[in-house]
Structure formats: C-alpha cells, structure tokens
C-alpha cells in the first residue's frame, strides 16, 4: 500500500527514465572540460610521430584524462543514440534490435579505446 505521492516520487510508469535523463546531463557537464582538453591535445599532437603519441599517453594525467573522456563520451553517445532511435524507428522489433546493436558497437569501441590508451601508457 503506497500513497500516490510515494508512487510519484519513486518511479513513474517508465521505471528508469529519470536516470537516463540525469546521466545524459551529468556526462554532458563532464564532457565540457574534457572535450576542450581533447581539442587542445589533438592540436598539440598535430604532426606527431607514433613515439610522441606514446610519450604523451605515458604521462599518467593524460592517460587518466583520456580514460575519463572515453567513459563520458561513449556513455553520452549511448544515451543520445538511444533517444534518436526511439524517436525515429517505429517498429518495436527493429527499434530494440537497432538499440542493442548500437549499444554493442559503442561498448566495443569504448573498450578498444581504453585498452589502446592503457597499452600506450604502460
């Protein structure tokens, strides 16, 4: 027996919609400084040799900031693409299949980036 207020405060009919909305904002805020950092590092690595790139990631702060970037970026991307697919793919089966496929691809790319950064860093 829950009061109407309790039900409204807890979860709506979608059960987890607020988390999606909130996570999208949190990752967006995190990406403000991280994407500026990313743009500056790309400029500094313009015309860099592979050794210079490796030396860049061997600096612990660079590796850590890039891992933060990868985490926030791919999470933000997953949330964003999901909303776009939910809006435009009208058949339920295709919608679920496309969301799962894109999520899988995003997870794969995120791991590939993280492992590459760690390999260059260590």
């Amino acid at each position, binding site marked *: 027996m829950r009061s109407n207020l309790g039900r409204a405060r807890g979860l709506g009919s979608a059960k987890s919609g607020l988390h999606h909305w909130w996570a999208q904002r949190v990752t967006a805020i995190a990406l403000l400084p991280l994407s500026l950092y990313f743009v500056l590092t790309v400029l500094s690595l313009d015309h860099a040799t592979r050794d210079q790139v490796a030396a860049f990631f061997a600096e612990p702060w660079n590796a850590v900031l890039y891992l933060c970037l990868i985490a926030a970026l791919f999470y933000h991307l997953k949330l964003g693409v999901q909303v776009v697919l939910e809006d435009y793919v009208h058949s339920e089966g295709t919608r679920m299949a496309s969301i799962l496929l894109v999520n899988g691809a995003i997870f794969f*790319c995120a791991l590939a980036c993280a492992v590459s950064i760690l390999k260059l860093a260590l």
Partner: protein
Amino acid sequence: MKDVREALMIGRNTEGKLVRRPVSPFMLGSAYRFQTSSATSIMHRITGCALGVGTLLLTYWLVSAAAGDGAYSIAEAILGSWFGIIILFGFTVALFYHFCNGIRHLAWDAGKGFELPDMHRSGGFVIAATAILTIAFWALALFIW
C-alpha cells in the same frame, strides 16, 4: 480508411487548408517554416549523430597508435589526406556546434533563457561561436603548428 483513428490525422494548417497532420521526423520544410529554434534543435541531433560516427575515427586513431608504427603511419596517411582533412573539418564543426548548443541546453535545463528573444539570441550566438572556434582551431592546426 483502414482505421477510424485516421480521421484524427486530418487537420487544418494556418491558411485553413485541410492537411494530413505531419509526423516526426518529416516536419521541417513541409509543415514548418524555417525557424531558428527548430533548426538549431535538429542540428543538435544531426551533429550528435555525426560525432557518434566520428568516434570511430577516434577509436581508429588510438587503436592504430597502440598497434605499432606500421598501422600508425597508415592511419596518419589516411587522416592527413585531403579526404581525411575534409572529414576532420566536418568533425570539428560538429564538435564545436554540439559543445556550444549543449551549453544552451544545459542552461534551459536550469530554467534559464526560455524567453523567445533570449532563445533566438543564444541560437545566433551558438552559430557564431561555432564558426569562430572552427576557424581558430584550423588556423592553429594548419599555420601555427
């Protein structure tokens, strides 16, 4: 008519003409005249999707650097070719637009800037800032370093 609910899809446009109500995403152009608000909104989605595809480039760059000298020199040749530069240019435009308009969205989430004149001004500001940041980036990339 297959479904009686189809009757609800008939409406009148601002000129009083009978039309079939438009359904997302095919509303810009045919149903709506051009407005800063809708244009900046759909651009946010388009640049977001473009950046999503662009993360494949970021992934390729990092993986090739980790793989070794041979893979990295191939990646360098591809990204440094004229075709690569055009793709990277598009990537920076999308990134700076999504960055600036994202700040606008966060301000709206905080309840600020909802008045129409403010919203139109901030929309123009986003487009100007995107142009300035993109030009500044490529001026630094091509001529300074």
